[in-house]
Structure formats: C-alpha cells, structure tokens
C-alpha cells in the first residue's frame, strides 16, 4: 500500500513539473520533431543530467541499485522507429498523454485509448516477436561505462558538459 502511495505522489510531482515546463503538449512534442522548439529536449536532458549525477552518487554510496533494460538491437531499433512514427502522428508519448489530458487536452484521451489497443495487439504478437526480433542483437543489460571500460565519473562529467553546451546552443539559436 505504501509503495502505491509513493507512486501516486511521485507521479503527481512529475506531472506538475511536466505541465509547468509545458513539456506535455502536442505543440511542444511536434515542435521538437520539427526541430523548431526544443522545450521537451531541454526538460528531458535537464532531468537526465540531474538524475544521472544523483543516482550514480547514491549507487556509489550503496544506497540504490540500478535497474537497466536489456540492449536488444532488433527490438530497441525497430520498436523505437515504430514508436517514433506513431509519436509523430499522435503527438504524445504514454507519460505525456496522461499529463496533457490533465491540462484538458481531450485528443490525448483518444491517443491513450489507441495506446491500450496497441498494447493489446502487441500482446497478441508477443510470442512471434519474442522468438524473432526480440532476440536479434541481444547484448544483455549493458551500460556505457561497461562497454567503454571507463569509470562512470569520467563519462558523467562529459555528459554534463555536453548537455550544457547543447543548452547554450539552443538559447543562441532561439530554439
């Protein structure tokens, strides 16, 4: 029960910030895909950089465990491209659709109903996909530090610096 309440509160905070940052809207999602408005990239990369430093700090202190998803090239790339195609059409991803509906965007509800159908269709296709695409290029739960053989505290500062330079470029270009 406690874990469910934590989930609700965490989601409420995330949804609050998504709305305040204007990151849940169709116009912002399509703006990023049309390369004319980088609001959602600014939001997402800021969250990634803070999360990266915080999570790895706590991991080194032995206070949290990582939860890494498997790298399966076939599934990640093909699924990712299919996702992207749908994303350009609906203009919401699963999380932001819930946020957009919260701020009154009714088309997000249509999108979410479609998402339920998409999940049901995937469940039907799962046995066939599991034996094929989802086995192509399976490298397991790998991370960049493992692949590159570098300590994560060499990689993380590079990400932070790269992110800040990217942000400066966005502001310069008015994106």
């Amino acid at each position, binding site marked *: 029960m406690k874990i469910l309440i934590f989930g609700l509160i965490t989601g409420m905070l995330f*949804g609050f910030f998504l709305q305040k940052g204007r990151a849940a809207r169709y116009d912002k999602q399509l703006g990023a895909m049309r390369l004319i408005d980088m609001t959602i990239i600014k939001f997402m990369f800021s969250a990634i950089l803070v999360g990266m430093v915080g999570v790895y700090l706590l991991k080194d202190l032995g206070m949290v465990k990582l939860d890494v998803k498997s790298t399966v090239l076939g599934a990640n*790339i*093909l699924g990712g491209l299919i996702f992207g195609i749908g994303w350009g059409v609906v203009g919401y991803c699963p999380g932001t659709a819930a*946020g957009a509906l919260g701020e009154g965007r009714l*088309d997000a509800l249509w999108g979410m109903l479609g998402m339920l159908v998409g999940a049901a269709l995937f469940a039907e296709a799962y046995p066939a996909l599991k034996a094929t695409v989802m086995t192509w290029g399976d490298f397991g739960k790998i991370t960049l530090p493992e692949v590159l053989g570098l300590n994560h505290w060499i990689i993380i500062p590079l990400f932070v610096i790269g992110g800040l330079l990217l942000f400066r470029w966005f502001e310069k270009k008015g994106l």
Partner: protein
Amino acid sequence: MKRDEGSWSPYLAGALSGLVLVLSVFATNKFFGSSTTFARTAGAIEKLFAPERTAEMAYFVKYVPKVDWQMMFVIGIFLGALIASITSGDFRLKAVPDMWERRFGSNTLNRGIIAFCGGIIVMFGARLAGGCPTGHGLSGSLQLAVSGYIALISFFIGGIVIARMLYGGGRRP
C-alpha cells in the same frame, strides 16, 4: 523559444523532475516508466471479457494485470498536471492542438481518429522497444544504459521523419 505566461523554465522544471526521480529511486528503488501500465491495463480489460484466454497469454503472464507503483505513477501524472494547470488558470478543454489546427483544420473527429491510430502505433513500438521516452529515454539514459540511447535516437528518427511528412520542413506553420 519565447515562453508563454505562467510557465516555468523547462530547464528548471526538468531538473526538479530529475531530483524527484532520484528521491523516488532512493525511497522505493523505482525508476520512472509509463508504457508497462498500458500493457497491464489492456490485460485487465481483456480479463473482463475473456478471463481464461487472457490468463494463458504469455505477455499477460509476464505483465500481470494489476495496480502497481507505475500505474499509480501514471495516474499521478494526470492529477499533477491537472492541479498545476488549474491553480495557474491554464486549464483548457481542447480537442484539437493549435499547431494541428493551423495545418489540418479544427475538425475534432479527424484529430481524434488520427490520435487514436497514432496511439496504437506508439504503444506497439514502445512495448517492442522495451519502453517509452520515460522508461528508456529518461530512466535508461540517466543510468548510462546503452538501450536507452539506442531507443531514444530511434524514437527521434521516426518522429522527425513523420513530422517532416506531416508539416514539411522549416518553420512555416
């Protein structure tokens, strides 16, 4: 990009979200994700109509239809955005986004049908990829997971191609 009134800097809102994520991982070891909830909910609905068939489907054996941390998280996103928009007077009931309307007109049904179809494709892709921009893009990337970057890049390649087909290049509306 000029910001509209009452909005926060996306850098600040994003950084605060990152902080919430770190606290969430610390408190419950739960990383953010959204799309599994749609799989579980689809399973719960199918269970109502065909309980025996659903119970035997491999995918719903793996993702048992139940209320879990992530489902509450997704409901929370809805509530949080609702509270944020109402308290700042920003809540608007709109069935057609502005950008869509300028390009394709204000027909609610057209937009609804296209959003529905896009939703089907999005979720099929997310489940195949193993996550969405929340699970792969945010939680994966920040853990330096290789899968997170591959998925995130693929999401954007697909999205950029479709956005170009729908809207053409450049800034014109």
